[in-house]
């Protein structure tokens, strides 16, 4: 199957391919709020690996409100420069949840999924590793099975994937404008 893709300059056609889709299933009923997922996520993504940990850098966070019995692990998804227009709520089992409780976006309306020192957005990468991990680390450390892992095949359009630095730079460009980022990089390279 063929699809039309806009690449910024013109349309080009790309094939749909079978792709392994990695799925983390979140069973909020089973979450005990221990936040082991946050601990191991931030440790795995430390540099060097496991050398430090800090839930503030984790790409999974447990939305946690014990007095309302709300425990929702959320994985960091995309970066967005825009806030949602409204704040919708869901009522599940007679408990009112903010839409934000289920949202993985790194957005201007909250602190979540941003590096604490740089505010750069964080995104779950399913613990890509060499050799590959059997399951993402948050799933491995959730031995109460609130998080489980599945792989399934889906037909998807191939896309050019941005690497981590590009994601970061893109968000800086969104925030400060391309010229300011260029000027800063030039200035920094002169200094060093």
């Amino acid at each position, binding site marked *: 199957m063929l699809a039309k893709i806009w690449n910024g300059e013109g349309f080009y056609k790309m094939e749909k391919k079978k792709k392994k889709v990695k799925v983390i299933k979140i069973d909020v009923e089973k979450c*005990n709020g221990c936040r*082991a997922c946050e601990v191991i996520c931030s440790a795995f993504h430390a540099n060097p690996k496991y050398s430090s940990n*800090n839930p503030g*850098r984790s790409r999974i966070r447990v939305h946690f409100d014990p007095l309302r019995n709300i425990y929702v692990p959320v994985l960091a998804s995309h970066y967005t420069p825009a806030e949602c227009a409204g704040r919708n709520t869901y009522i599940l089992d007679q408990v009112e949840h903010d839409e934000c409780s289920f949202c993985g976006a790194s957005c201007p309306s909250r602190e979540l999924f941003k590096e604490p020192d740089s505010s750069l957005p964080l995104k779950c990468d399913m613990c890509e590793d060499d050799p590959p991990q059997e399951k993402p680390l948050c799933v491995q450390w959730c031995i*109460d099975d609130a998080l489980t892992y599945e792989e399934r095949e889906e037909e998807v359009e191939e896309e050019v994937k941005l690497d981590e630095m590009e994601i970061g730079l893109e968000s800086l460009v969104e925030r400060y404008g391309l010229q300011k980022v260029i000027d800063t990089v030039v200035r920094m390279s002169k200094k060093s």
Partner: protein
Amino acid sequence: MRYAETGYNLEIDLSRGNIERVETDPRLTELHLGGLGTNAKILWDRVPPEIEPFSPDNLLIFSTGLLCGTPAPGANRTIVSSFSPQTQLMAYSMMGGFFAPELKYAGYDKVIIRGRSPKLVYLWINNDKVEIRDASHLQGKGALETAELIRQELKEPKAQVAAIGLAGEHKVYFASIEHMMRSASRLGLGAVMGDKGLKAIAVRGTKDINVARPEEFIGLCNEILKYIEWRREKPIKGVPPILATLGSPQEMAVKDENWHTTSFSWGNARQRRPDFWKPEIEKRWEEVQDKSVERLISCYNCPMRCGGIIRHPELDRYMMKCYSKLTYIMAAMADDLAFGFKIVGRAQEYGVDGFTTPQVMAFAVELYEAGILTDQDMPGFPSNNEERFFYLLEKIVRREGIGDVLANGVYWAARQIGKGAEAYDHNTTKRHEQMVIKLGMLNPLYYLMYGTGEKLNITQIEGQIPQAPLPEDVREEFVRDWIQVPRANEKEFKEFILKWEPRGEYAFPFYPPIDVICKLVEWQETMHYIDDVTGVCAGLSSFPIKPPYHINNYPHIISAATGLDIDEAELWKIAKRNRNLVRVNNIRRGLKRKDERPPEDHWKKRFPEYEAKLQDEYYKFKGWNSEGVPTKETLNQLGLDYVGEDLERRGIL
């Protein structure tokens, strides 16, 4: 770079409103590791025995454990230390939850509080920004309510809060410091906090905690998790279900309360009710528990679900764990589990210890029934057991009327009331209420543990071994994979398990030999002292049988986290140093050999001469003189020469 620890303490002077961030000496980590160890050192150095618990010069220390904030599973305990208004001795009570890791991420190993604020305040620690804030609007508020109000006021839902309730504000001698379902409850630390005018500490941190040898450390953490999973499939055979698993007793999940309700004493630690657990009770309690426990919950980075979210129709939601589900019910001789869920919810908001409080109230009820306390002392005292407990709770937390006396705990209240009330104080050791259990034959291990334990809470001294001889057919299997035993004692400890019988030649009190008794007690106690420095929960380590953390893997875990090279001998020595430092803090405050006795009626069958010999031998084994004071030689071996000199100057040594 400092590993596992942050290398900084926060020093807060509430009298002057001064806040300082102080770098700590890495040498102290090598000597004491942290947590309780460095707390005991700070208290020894800075709070001489002349300082009363309710003095501005007394310190209140909130310490993290060395491994808190690292990925070590279950390393989340806050070790709160000070001097107790109830025992007049060193108090160290601990709480799980989320407070200690958050404090580490904020960049601090300890918060050391001195002075007394002229008005009620709370402390807000947000990474490098630390403020003392007005708390006058929080006066009289419940502990959980206070935490919620602070989070809202700071617009910081992720802040972790430890707070006192009304009882702490009124300096009740068994007031607790509450943090969600966890609390540092024993020995009146909440009262010390109240005396300092400190309503709460809120903390938020987003910094890194580093470990020295990452790959090795995470490998060891993975092994711990795997072992926990394995143990889930392998409960210990031949012990009651509540002792067969890991964690603190799984009271929120387990509904079968046969063991607790029929083995422990009811009322003022008086009578057993061997026939209590009847099918109709079982059915009713099961229904109540199913309705009340909404979710099983954990502390930070721990898969054990020791806690529950509790819903009671007359209360806001709250969280509970462990044995307080039963303490009020059994003390009140109430047969209704819903009463337990209701009174714990209220008591937690007031911030009182779920262990001492019901005993004090049962003591008051007994005095009333004996005519020692009258309607004049307790105007309008209800006739119904449950209502009586609510009545007493309200009086105690406000120190109103008779509550002002009862708020000092059984020991002091008995003496203040007089008229023979002292005879009703039958279950305290060192002025603190003990486990409500009355047994037949003297247990020589527990004799020593009740007597010499500095924490005064048996569950924080005992562990590792079954509480009664195993059935013969499971003994071989038990010792086969007993990897937790210290290698030096492997043979004799295994032999003990294999031979130990309920009756006959190999039964208590004269079996095992005294030297093995001493070693078994020291092993149990030492594992707690190690947990109390690392901040690992006793439920994964020193308390249960066959835990994931033990003396054979702990040295590797601590070394990989900190980069210190600590082997088993060195770890044992550090634990011994800390253990002796806690003891000398108490010795210097007047602790004597005669104080080190379990409650007289704890066992029916007593052996005064043998008990004296046990105590003599154990003191010798520990390197203490016949009065229980560590000898100069012992202190010098541990590098505590300065302690020996101080004790000599005071004429104690």
